[in-house]
Protein backbone atom coordinates (compact mmCIF):
# COMPACT_ATOMS: atom_id res chain seq x y z
CA UNK A 1 0.00 0.00 0.00
CA UNK A 2 1.11 3.52 -0.74
CA UNK A 3 1.33 5.96 2.11
CA UNK A 4 -0.19 9.41 1.76
CA UNK A 5 1.13 12.17 4.00
CA UNK A 6 -1.64 14.61 4.87
CA UNK A 7 -0.62 18.15 5.88
CA UNK A 8 -1.84 19.70 9.12
CA UNK A 9 -4.61 21.87 7.60
CA UNK A 10 -6.23 18.85 5.95
CA UNK A 11 -6.07 16.52 8.96
CA UNK A 12 -9.44 17.67 10.35
CA UNK A 13 -10.92 15.89 7.30
CA UNK A 14 -8.97 12.63 7.79
CA UNK A 15 -10.11 12.14 11.38
CA UNK A 16 -6.79 13.63 12.51
CA UNK A 17 -4.67 11.13 10.58
CA UNK A 18 -1.39 12.47 9.21
CA UNK A 19 -0.58 9.23 7.37
CA UNK A 20 -3.14 7.28 5.35
CA UNK A 21 -2.46 3.99 3.53
CA UNK A 22 -4.11 3.59 0.13
CA UNK A 23 -4.20 0.97 -2.63
CA UNK A 24 -3.58 2.78 -5.92
CA UNK A 25 -1.52 2.63 -9.10
CA UNK A 26 -1.40 6.33 -9.90
CA UNK A 27 -1.47 9.64 -8.05
CA UNK A 28 -4.97 10.29 -9.41
CA UNK A 29 -6.24 6.94 -8.15
CA UNK A 30 -4.70 7.61 -4.76
CA UNK A 31 -6.55 10.92 -4.49
CA UNK A 32 -9.80 9.22 -5.56
CA UNK A 33 -9.29 6.56 -2.89
CA UNK A 34 -8.46 9.16 -0.27
CA UNK A 35 -11.58 11.14 -1.15
CA UNK A 36 -13.70 7.96 -1.10
CA UNK A 37 -12.38 7.13 2.35
CA UNK A 38 -12.70 10.68 3.68
CA UNK A 39 -15.35 12.46 1.55
CA UNK A 40 -15.08 15.76 3.44
CA UNK A 41 -11.50 16.25 2.22
CA UNK A 42 -12.68 16.38 -1.40
CA UNK A 43 -13.76 20.04 -1.56
CA UNK A 44 -10.40 21.06 -0.08
CA UNK A 45 -8.42 19.23 -2.75
CA UNK A 46 -10.63 19.96 -5.78
CA UNK A 47 -12.65 22.98 -6.88
CA UNK A 48 -16.22 22.82 -8.20
CA UNK A 49 -14.88 21.93 -11.66
CA UNK A 50 -13.01 18.94 -10.30
CA UNK A 51 -9.62 20.59 -10.77
CA UNK A 52 -6.96 20.53 -8.08
CA UNK A 53 -7.03 23.70 -6.02
CA UNK A 54 -4.05 26.02 -6.64
CA UNK A 55 -2.63 25.50 -3.18
CA UNK A 56 -2.39 21.71 -3.56
CA UNK A 57 1.09 20.40 -4.35
CA UNK A 58 1.66 16.70 -4.86
CA UNK A 59 5.04 15.09 -4.40
CA UNK A 60 5.89 11.43 -4.94
CA UNK A 61 8.73 10.96 -2.48
CA UNK A 62 10.66 14.20 -3.12
CA UNK A 63 9.55 14.83 -6.71
CA UNK A 64 6.81 17.27 -7.70
CA UNK A 65 4.33 15.37 -9.91
CA UNK A 66 4.19 18.40 -12.23
CA UNK A 67 7.73 17.46 -13.26
CA UNK A 68 6.60 13.84 -13.77
CA UNK A 69 3.28 12.86 -15.34
CA UNK A 70 0.92 14.83 -13.15
CA UNK A 71 -1.95 12.80 -11.69
CA UNK A 72 -1.08 10.01 -14.15
CA UNK A 73 2.25 9.49 -12.34
CA UNK A 74 2.63 5.85 -11.29
CA UNK A 75 3.06 5.05 -7.62
CA UNK A 76 4.27 1.90 -5.92
CA UNK A 77 3.94 0.36 -2.50
CA UNK A 78 7.23 1.80 -1.29
CA UNK A 79 6.34 5.37 -2.36
CA UNK A 80 5.03 8.16 -0.20
CA UNK A 81 2.60 10.58 -1.80
CA UNK A 82 2.89 13.91 -0.01
CA UNK A 83 0.18 16.54 -0.19
CA UNK A 84 1.83 19.86 0.59
CA UNK A 85 0.09 23.22 0.73
CA UNK A 86 1.35 26.05 -1.43
CA UNK A 87 1.35 29.17 0.65
CA UNK A 88 1.16 32.39 -1.28
CA UNK A 89 -0.51 35.79 -1.26
CA UNK A 90 0.01 39.45 -1.81
CA UNK A 91 -1.43 42.94 -1.95
CA UNK A 92 -4.16 44.36 -4.20
CA UNK A 93 -1.96 45.74 -6.94
Amino acid sequence: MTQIRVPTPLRPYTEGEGQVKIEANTVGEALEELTAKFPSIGPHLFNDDGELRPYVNLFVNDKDVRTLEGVQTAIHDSDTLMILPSIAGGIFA
Partner: protein
Amino acid sequence: MKLLIPGPVMDEIRSHGEKLYPEEGAGLILGSIEGEHREARRVLPMPNHFNSGERNRRYLLDPQEILQAEELAEQLGLEVIGIFHSHPDHPPAPSQYDLDWAVPWYVYLITRVEQGAASESRAWRMLEDHTRMVEQALEIEDGEG
Protein backbone atom coordinates in the same frame (compact mmCIF):
# COMPACT_ATOMS: atom_id res chain seq x y z
CA MET B 1 -11.35 31.84 16.97
CA LYS B 2 -8.86 34.02 18.82
CA LEU B 3 -5.17 34.26 17.97
CA LEU B 4 -2.94 34.99 20.96
CA ILE B 5 0.56 36.23 20.24
CA PRO B 6 3.18 36.99 22.92
CA GLY B 7 4.71 40.44 22.49
CA PRO B 8 8.24 39.19 21.64
CA VAL B 9 6.81 36.88 18.94
CA MET B 10 4.82 39.75 17.48
CA ASP B 11 7.97 41.88 17.50
CA GLU B 12 9.70 39.23 15.39
CA ILE B 13 6.86 39.24 12.86
CA ARG B 14 6.96 43.03 12.62
CA SER B 15 10.76 43.06 12.31
CA HIS B 16 10.68 40.56 9.45
CA GLY B 17 8.24 42.74 7.50
CA GLU B 18 10.36 45.82 8.11
CA LYS B 19 13.60 44.06 7.18
CA LEU B 20 12.24 42.92 3.82
CA TYR B 21 10.43 46.19 2.96
CA PRO B 22 9.63 47.16 0.21
CA GLU B 23 9.23 43.45 -0.51
CA GLU B 24 6.71 41.25 1.23
CA GLY B 25 7.99 39.20 4.13
CA ALA B 26 6.29 35.99 5.18
CA GLY B 27 6.68 32.95 7.37
CA LEU B 28 4.96 30.37 9.49
CA ILE B 29 3.44 30.68 12.95
CA LEU B 30 4.05 27.70 15.22
CA GLY B 31 1.92 27.24 18.27
CA SER B 32 -0.77 25.28 20.02
CA ILE B 33 -4.53 24.98 19.76
CA GLU B 34 -6.77 25.12 22.80
CA GLY B 35 -10.41 24.92 21.84
CA GLU B 36 -11.20 28.05 19.86
CA HIS B 37 -7.93 29.72 20.85
CA ARG B 38 -4.66 29.44 19.00
CA GLU B 39 -1.54 30.56 20.80
CA ALA B 40 1.60 31.44 18.88
CA ARG B 41 4.80 30.20 20.51
CA ARG B 42 7.37 31.02 17.86
CA VAL B 43 7.63 32.08 14.24
CA LEU B 44 9.71 30.82 11.36
CA PRO B 45 10.51 33.62 8.91
CA MET B 46 10.77 32.02 5.46
CA PRO B 47 12.36 33.07 2.15
CA ASN B 48 10.00 34.67 -0.37
CA HIS B 49 10.29 32.52 -3.49
CA PHE B 50 8.12 34.66 -5.77
CA ASN B 51 9.78 36.11 -8.90
CA SER B 52 12.28 38.71 -7.76
CA GLY B 53 10.64 41.60 -9.63
CA GLU B 54 7.24 41.05 -7.99
CA ARG B 55 8.13 40.41 -4.36
CA ASN B 56 6.91 43.91 -3.48
CA ARG B 57 3.35 42.65 -4.04
CA ARG B 58 3.52 38.84 -3.82
CA TYR B 59 4.95 36.13 -1.62
CA LEU B 60 5.37 32.41 -2.13
CA LEU B 61 6.68 29.86 0.35
CA ASP B 62 8.41 26.71 -0.84
CA PRO B 63 6.40 23.49 -0.20
CA GLN B 64 9.51 21.53 0.77
CA GLU B 65 10.43 24.20 3.32
CA ILE B 66 6.86 24.01 4.65
CA LEU B 67 7.30 20.24 5.06
CA GLN B 68 10.54 20.81 7.00
CA ALA B 69 8.75 23.37 9.18
CA GLU B 70 5.91 20.92 9.86
CA GLU B 71 8.47 18.33 10.92
CA LEU B 72 10.21 20.86 13.18
CA ALA B 73 6.89 21.82 14.73
CA GLU B 74 6.14 18.15 15.46
CA GLN B 75 9.56 17.76 17.14
CA LEU B 76 8.75 20.78 19.32
CA GLY B 77 5.31 19.48 20.20
CA LEU B 78 3.72 22.37 18.30
CA GLU B 79 1.71 22.79 15.10
CA VAL B 80 1.93 25.14 12.16
CA ILE B 81 -1.15 27.15 13.14
CA GLY B 82 -0.88 29.93 10.62
CA ILE B 83 0.94 32.14 8.19
CA PHE B 84 2.15 35.71 8.61
CA HIS B 85 2.96 38.11 5.82
CA SER B 86 3.41 41.82 5.29
CA HIS B 87 1.54 44.21 3.00
CA PRO B 88 4.01 46.97 2.08
CA ASP B 89 2.16 50.30 2.01
CA HIS B 90 -1.21 48.54 1.84
CA PRO B 91 -3.91 47.74 4.41
CA PRO B 92 -3.67 44.50 6.41
CA ALA B 93 -6.71 43.00 4.71
CA PRO B 94 -6.77 40.05 2.31
CA SER B 95 -6.50 40.81 -1.39
CA GLN B 96 -8.19 38.78 -4.11
CA TYR B 97 -4.84 37.05 -4.57
CA ASP B 98 -4.77 36.19 -0.86
CA LEU B 99 -8.30 34.78 -1.23
CA ASP B 100 -7.34 32.69 -4.26
CA TRP B 101 -4.54 31.00 -2.36
CA ALA B 102 -5.84 30.84 1.19
CA VAL B 103 -6.05 27.44 2.83
CA PRO B 104 -8.91 26.99 5.30
CA TRP B 105 -7.86 26.07 8.83
CA TYR B 106 -4.70 28.21 8.84
CA VAL B 107 -4.97 31.65 10.40
CA TYR B 108 -3.42 34.39 8.25
CA LEU B 109 -1.83 37.33 10.06
CA ILE B 110 -1.30 40.33 7.80
CA THR B 111 0.83 43.31 8.91
CA ARG B 112 0.87 46.64 7.16
CA VAL B 113 4.39 48.04 6.68
CA GLU B 114 4.19 51.73 5.89
CA GLN B 115 7.36 53.33 4.52
CA GLY B 116 9.41 50.63 6.22
CA ALA B 117 7.69 50.77 9.60
CA ALA B 118 5.30 48.00 10.70
CA SER B 119 1.93 49.28 11.87
CA GLU B 120 -1.44 47.54 12.12
CA SER B 121 -1.81 43.73 12.10
CA ARG B 122 -5.04 41.81 11.59
CA ALA B 123 -5.85 38.09 11.60
CA TRP B 124 -8.02 36.32 9.02
CA ARG B 125 -9.28 32.86 8.24
CA MET B 126 -10.75 31.39 5.06
CA LEU B 127 -14.21 29.92 5.46
CA GLU B 128 -14.60 26.19 4.92
CA ASP B 129 -16.57 26.82 1.72
CA HIS B 130 -13.68 28.90 0.29
CA THR B 131 -15.93 31.90 -0.36
CA ARG B 132 -14.31 34.59 1.78
CA MET B 133 -11.91 35.34 4.60
CA VAL B 134 -13.32 36.41 7.94
CA GLU B 135 -11.47 38.52 10.50
CA GLN B 136 -10.47 36.77 13.71
CA ALA B 137 -9.86 38.20 17.17
CA LEU B 138 -6.20 39.04 17.75
CA GLU B 139 -4.67 39.50 21.18
CA ILE B 140 -1.07 40.56 21.59
CA GLU B 141 0.15 39.70 25.05
CA ASP B 142 2.54 42.02 26.87
CA GLY B 143 5.83 41.01 28.43
CA GLU B 144 7.08 37.46 28.14
CA GLY B 145 3.61 36.14 27.27
